[in-house]
């Protein structure tokens, strides 16, 4: 089951959903609209490698917008702090953004239950597109889980701003099973 906008509002009041700052105007029929924050992250290594830390720079989106060229990939973030200890959030683009050829996440739309923070957008442009800080870019929906809830307490908890991949931290550990 997916929550309606009205139910999201109710659950925010009860503290079962965290959306900060909360703006009533951003409620839609089945989701809440997310705003693009000011910072973005670009990797500087030529080849990305999950087995090691990948270098990056953090920059600010200029006032007159940031031009993403076709094929560009950067990490952005939601201005909003979002999460829930009771529902499973899913991230989507706003259809108006997707219609311009921009991906806002790269096939990992599920947020773990209990994960709270700015969500990191994985921005991938299929054609040239200009992005502005403060624009509505994505949306989050909330889904009812079945079963005992064990809350997320992982590498990305309490993220603020765009958060680079932390996969290298336990990569060797997770490969041990095979050798």
């Amino acid at each position: 089951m997916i929550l309606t906008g009205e139910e999201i509002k109710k659950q925010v009041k009860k503290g079962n959903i965290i959306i900060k700052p909360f703006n009533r105007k951003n409620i839609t029929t089945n989701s809440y609209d997310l705003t693009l924050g000011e910072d973005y992250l670009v990797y500087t290594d030529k080849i990305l490698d999950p087995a090691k830390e990948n270098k990056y720079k953090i920059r600010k989106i200029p006032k007159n917008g940031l031009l993403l060229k076709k094929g560009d990939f950067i990490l952005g973030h939601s201005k909003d702090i979002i999460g829930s200890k009771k529902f499973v959030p899913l991230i989507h683009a706003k259809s108006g953004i997707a219609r311009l050829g921009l991906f806002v996440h790269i096939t990992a739309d599920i947020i773990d239950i209990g994960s709270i923070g700015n969500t990191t957008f994985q921005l991938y442009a299929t054609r040239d597109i200009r992005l502005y800080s403060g624009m509505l870019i994505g949306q989050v929906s909330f889904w009812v889980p079945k079963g005992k809830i064990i809350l997320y307490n992982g590498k990305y908890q309490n993220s603020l701003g765009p958060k680079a991949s932390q996969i290298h931290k336990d990569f060797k550990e997770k490969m041990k099973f095979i050798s």
Partner: protein
Amino acid sequence: MILTGSEIEKEIKKSNITITPFNKNQVNPNSYNYRIDSRIIDFSKNKIKKIKIPKTGFVLKPHQIYLANTYEILGSDKYAMSLIGRSSLGRLGLFLQVSANLGHTGSKHSWTLELVSAKPLRIYPYMIIGQISFWNNKGRIIHYKRSYSKYNKPKQSKIRRLR
């Protein structure tokens, strides 16, 4: 409704979900992390080229599609599934599945993976590469027993040109 990690474990014990081999460490709060197998298919030049991923890794070229398969047998006769990437690799620009993430109830096999990377990215054999979630059905279930569900190796598209 989406199953929590502990519910996925329960349903494996009851044989309502199949994950083989199963590793408790790969359970997430509301999904299970799967691994890539050791082979990959490059068909960018309209020819099928099978590549064994070396231990030292294989670098995916950006904006190009590759096929691979999951190391695990994944499926369920009771739940519908969504097989997607994971945030740690999405943050490195790796698409897992090209917008067809839905797994039909009744399919149970090693899944074909569609990989597209936004940047040159090194991948390793048997690394954890994505996650699968399980969703409650509403309505009578007629099990999926068609075309791709019998394949355990990366399988290229069977779509033919309409005449």
